[in-house]
């Protein structure tokens, strides 16, 4: 390749990504840096800020409330992310099997519908569904002879209940991604496997899942980020209750910044969130991504 051509290539590439880079840099990077810098300052009564070095980091990272929030968040993640990924995969596989394209589109659209509702509206509707007295869920359980559950008002059930709302909201979106990827797998692979005598399960394990690996990793990463950062669902319903059982790191961050007026502490939490997500994403990328032989 002639060097002039390469140079033109490099310049062109840079120019193509420049608008996006400038935009993100301007809109997010500068506020992000200001926020990170803010994590080294504390606000004193009167509104002035005082440089305190890493004191706030020590304070936040040794605060049991903070770690309880982290624990709640991890618990929510563990409940939402695998369920979302597996369910989305299952639904996509099921949809893929349907012979009629019309049926497939119709059902797929229904799965995608929750995505069209704002998270706040969805959370409020779900809260009503979960209501221990008037909610339709307990009503249905009663018809099956099961005693009513407290759902969002129960210490044990509040996190699974919220996780369910998140799964519901995201399922369709991930299903679409998987469905599209499934449709791109050439049929010859399965025919060859069938000739070799492989059953449906083996074909799934040996062909489908490995070929879907990039999408599975991408979806897992996106879901992890989404569920970690989710705010509207909790804020509109439990506000972190009962007794802090549903207080996630983001809820605590919001309260710390805006209800307790401790912007420095909140910035520390933001740095923690960003760092954790980056770490976990990179780990996921490294550990689970596999190069696939086509």
């Amino acid at each position: 390749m002639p060097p002039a051509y390469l140079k033109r290539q490099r310049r062109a590439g840079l120019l193509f990504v420049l608008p996006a880079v400038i935009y993100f840099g301007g809109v997010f990077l500068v506020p992000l840096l200001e926020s990170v810098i803010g994590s080294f300052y504390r606000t004193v009564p009167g509104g002035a800020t005082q440089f305190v070095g890493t004191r706030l980091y020590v304070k936040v990272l040794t605060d049991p409330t903070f770690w309880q929030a982290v624990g709640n968040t991890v618990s929510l993640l563990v409940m939402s992310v695998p369920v979302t990924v597996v369910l989305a995969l299952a639904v996509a596989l099921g949809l893929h099997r349907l012979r009629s394209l019309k049926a497939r589109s119709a059902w797929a659209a229904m799965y995608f519908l929750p995505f069209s509702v704002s998270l706040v509206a969805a959370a409020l509707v779900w809260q009503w569904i979960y209501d221990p007295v008037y909610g339709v869920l307990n009503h249905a359980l009663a018809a099956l002879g099961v005693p009513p559950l407290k759902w969002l008002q129960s210490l044990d059930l509040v996190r699974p209940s919220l996780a369910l709302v998140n799964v519901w909201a995201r399922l369709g979106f991930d299903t679409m991604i998987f469905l599209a990827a499934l449709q791109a797998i050439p049929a010859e692979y399965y025919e060859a496997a069938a000739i070799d005598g492989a059953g449906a399960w083996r074909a799934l394990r040996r062909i489908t899942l490995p070929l879907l690996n990039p999408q599975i990793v991408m979806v897992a990463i996106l879901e992890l980020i989404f569920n970690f950062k989710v705010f509207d669902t909790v804020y509109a319903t439990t506000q972190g209750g009962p007794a802090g059982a549903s207080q996630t790191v983001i809820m605590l961050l919001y309260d710390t910044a805006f209800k307790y007026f401790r912007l420095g502490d909140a910035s520390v939490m933001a740095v923690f969130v960003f760092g954790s997500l980056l770490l976990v994403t990179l780990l996921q990328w490294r550990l689970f991504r596999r190069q696939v032989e086509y």
Partner: protein
Amino acid sequence: MAALPAPGRVLKPARLGWLTAALVAAGALCVVFPLFWMAVTSLKTVPEIQRLPLHVFPARWSNLDNYREVFQRQPFGRFLLNSALVASVAALSSAVVSSLAGYGFAKFRFPGHAVLFFGIIGILMVPFQSVVVPLYLWINRLGLLDTYPGILAPDLVSVFGVFLMRQAIEVVPSDYVDAARIDGAGELGIFCRVILPAVKPAIATLVIVKFMWTWNELFWPLVVVNSPTMKVVTLGLVSFTNMYFIEYNLVTAAAVVSVLPILAVFLAGQKWIVRGVVMSGLKG
């Protein structure tokens, strides 16, 4: 463009076809149920909503009182217009800038491309609550508070869009691009005439997803909008909840009103979505 396999080719054997179809259908109905519940609640009066034993269906299917009140209390029509404007502009600008960036990342090797790409993905990992005050102060300094550009500021380009377009463009055979170069086409010309037509479905997907996402945004508009005439639909919706209680009859009606336009957009472009996500799914 890679040839798509014929639709309807299924995994052999198809003995469990009926069971699968039934499960898929049941799942779909479960997923849609909360939305159905939302719609049905919006047609009920307050006593109906809170009566025991529970009645699923409203007493009068033609009871539009809640909808009337939603529009009476606030200029909800104006909110719809504002949301439509903001979401459209955000979707279009995302499509343009994300496509450009996606092309740059997919087909070019330049120093720092990995850092820049992961840097952009990293934006997703930043909690918005922690940048909202600095961002607001900047928008304030620029005099863009309570204006459309102000509301649009954090929404003009989508990280997911860059991701999606990069995946989609990666799959376009480089031969086409090289051929065009040999013919003497300029880079921008190649982008417009070779790349974009090849990834139309992905662009359509991005436009629709970004439109929906921006339409449903709450926190940023809450902070940056003051005038009632500049409010967006989500702000209108949240005004039916307050410090003391939630007016479920009005919230659900407002939610239905805010979902209908998106549904229209979605159903119109649904065909494009299914084909569009295909592109992003190939070879991650």
